[in-house]
């Protein structure tokens, strides 16, 4: 019979059974192998029972597949209590026979063994429940109890082999839990019989913080996520955070949201951030990262948006008090429930747990703006890669909800290390990176802001000075000289200097202007004199001409008179005759 199912496997895709557990279905690409058995192995307290229970509960609640939980260790009361504390309404499921818990008691001291036997009683017991409640999913938690209570291991192993074959024939998806072995997957080598899928659970300590990890060691006939995935167990149950399951297909908004500072908005293409973008504000201690974040949150709330402030460093009261000192009054916003705070010690839980906390709270409140201050404190509970993964998950989550998120990040100044290095990893998932820095000069320490990156907009390349006063945060132009950037009083001095220079220049120009005017006038006068001279010359020429004409006339007249007197008729004066004849 089992051969038949194997034959159908090759041409047809392996059928899968959705677990409904967040993240697990993603990394298994569709769930556990259907009608087959899966081994879940892990140490004490790694969450094996929880995973098994949730597999059944979700199967029953989401997919209407009745499940049988065969408990070798805990009684039904204990189990319902344990699971009940996780927020599932399993009483309802039990009442409707969608979840059946069967506690199998086995105690070596209660019986003796003589001669050969088999586990038909167990088969009948399971078969009875399966038939009665139309069971589709079975969890065996944990079969190893049998090994420690039954002496005849040889018989037990062959019986287990028979059991899993039997389940396959009955078309039941089985999940078996097992204690982790020292050098093997499970202590009693259950993986020999349950070879279709093996999931390893691990609860390890990293720097005094426990982190749960899940890995799929084997999945016959299917591809699967090969990494170790962090998972958490909280009141929402079992959640696997599969960083690789992030899909980069969120919609990009073109709407803009003000940074809360006009001058900063100007630096950001004049309009501020994109809605749903992730913003990183990094800088050394005391530079005003939180003030920027609070200003952003405050102004967003003033515009009627909701904001959620996650504080990993300071208490709510402290933040409120500190912001009050710079003229940002958060209290009324908190009272109006526009602004919510969640102050939590990063060491109180693992990274993934924090992430899910944040997601849960954000889901409840549905804000437009989220502040995480400071994100660097998360490094104390995970290495940079883990923080990076969690941030990537968070960012993708916020983007999917079109929430603009601002992270602050502490940069420790280290000689010889570029400041950007200290934010390596974090910045890659950020859309906007604002860098705050100190400028030390002339016995002063001043603050400056610059935008290292801002995706999708033409942003300013300017360094500006930050002024944090009673009236809040303000940005000022800085003076960039040939040698250095001037801030603080040096900037003021430079400003006055420039002013003086400017007024000097002005008077200079006025003087020159006057001189030019004078020269102009002089030239004009000269031109006028020359003009007069020219006129005079012209007059002379005309009078000369007149004189000449008169003379000619006189000469002609006198000649005529003379010839008249002489009575001469020489040819010569013919012309004169003609003239006179005229």
């Amino acid at each position, binding site marked *: 019979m089992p051969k038949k199912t194997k034959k159908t496997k090759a041409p047809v895709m392996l059928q899968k059974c959705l677990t409904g557990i967040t993240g697990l279905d993603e990394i298994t690409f569709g769930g556990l192998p259907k009608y087959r058995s899966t081994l879940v192995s892990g140490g004490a307290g790694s969450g094996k029972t929880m995973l098994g229970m949730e597999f059944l509960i979700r199967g029953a609640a989401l997919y209407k597949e009745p499940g049988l939980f065969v408990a070798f260790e805990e009684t039904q009361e204990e189990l319902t209590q344990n699971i009940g504390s996780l927020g599932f309404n399993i009483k309802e499921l039990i009442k409707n026979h969608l979840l059946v818990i*069967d506690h*199998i*008691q*086995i105690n070596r001291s*209660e*019986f*003796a*063994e*003589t*001669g*050969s*036997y*088999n*586990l*038909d*009683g*167990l088969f*009948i*017991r399971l*078969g*009875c*429940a399966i038939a009665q409640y139309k069971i589709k999913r079975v969890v065996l938690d944990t079969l190893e109890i049998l090994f420690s209570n*039954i002496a005849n291991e040889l018989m037990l192993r062959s019986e287990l082999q028979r059991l899993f074959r039997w389940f396959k024939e009955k078309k039941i998806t089985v999940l078996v839990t097992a204690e982790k072995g020292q050098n093997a997957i499970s202590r009693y080598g259950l993986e020999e019989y349950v070879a279709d899928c093996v999931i390893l659970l691990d609860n390890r300590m990293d720097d005094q913080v426990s982190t749960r990890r899940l890995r799929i060691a084997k999945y016959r006939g299917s591809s699967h996520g090969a990494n170790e995935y962090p998972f958490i167990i909280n009141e929402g149950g079992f959640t696997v955070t599969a960083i690789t399951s992030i899909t980069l297909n969120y919609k990009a908004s073109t709407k803009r949201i003000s940074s809360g500072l006009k001058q900063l908005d100007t630096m950001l293409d004049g309009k501020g951030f994109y809605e749903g973008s992730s913003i990183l504000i990094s800088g050394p201690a005391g530079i005003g990262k939180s003030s920027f974040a609070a200003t952003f949150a405050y102004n967003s709330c003033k515009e009627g948006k909701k904001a959620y402030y996650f504080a990993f460093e300071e208490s709510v009261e402290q933040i409120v008090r500190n912001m009050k000192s710079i003229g940002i009054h958060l209290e009324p916003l908190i009272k109006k429930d526009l602004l919510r705070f969640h102050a939590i010690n990063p060491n109180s839980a693992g990274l993934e747990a924090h992430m899910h906390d944040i997601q849960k709270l954000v889901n409840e409140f549905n804000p437009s703006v989220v502040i995480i201050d400071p994100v660097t404190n998360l490094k104390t509970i995970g290495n940079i890669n883990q923080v990076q993964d969690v941030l990537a998950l968070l960012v993708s989550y916020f983007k999917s909800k079109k929430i603009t998120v601002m992270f602050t990040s502490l940069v420790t100044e280290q000689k010889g290390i570029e400041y950007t290095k200290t934010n390596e990893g974090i910045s890659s998932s950020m859309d906007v990176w604002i860098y705050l820095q100190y400028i030390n000069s002339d016995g002063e320490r001043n603050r400056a802001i610059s935008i290292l990156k801002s995706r999708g907009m033409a942003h300013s390349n300017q360094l500006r000075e930050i002024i944090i006063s009673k009236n809040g945060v303000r940005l000022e132009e800085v003076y960039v000289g040939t040698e250095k950037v001037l801030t603080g009083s040096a900037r003021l001095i430079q400003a006055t200097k420039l002013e003086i220079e400017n007024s000097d220049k002005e008077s200079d120009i006025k003087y020159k202007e006057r001189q030019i005017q004078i020269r102009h006038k002089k030239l004009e006068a000269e031109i006028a004199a020359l003009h007069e001279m020219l006129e005079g010359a012209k007059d002379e020429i005309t009078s000369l001409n007149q004189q000449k004409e008169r003379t000619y006339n006189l000469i002609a007249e006198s000649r005529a008179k003379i010839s008249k007197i002489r009575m001469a008729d020489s040819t010569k004066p013919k012309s004169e005759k003609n003239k006179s004849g005229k």
Partner: protein
Amino acid sequence: MLAKLKAKTKKAKSLLKNKAVPKKKTNKKSPPKYVLLLYVVGQTPNCVRAFNNLKKICEENFPNDYSIEIIDLLKLPQLAKEDQILAIPTVIRKLPKPIRKTIGDLSNTEDVLIGLDLRLGRSFKK
């Protein structure tokens, strides 16, 4: 007396063979000292062997003072859960109290006597 007992065991055997509904074999007027329940699944070699062995042990150790009830889980599957039966065959000594349990085909008489603690007041008689 012996014949009577033989008849009894024959009846038990026939019950087993016919997959009969379990039935207390108490033909005696006074209740027997040893009340034994034998859980079987049909007539597998193990089960038949177990019954034969059990009967033999009883006959040899306390004739006339026992009853064997055969419970076939194929007929009464719900008893697997109710009586917490995993291994087949299983013998339960219901009486005298406390309850004792032995699993297997009962091929080792000594183990059965120890396991079911059936040697009460008999160990020195032999």
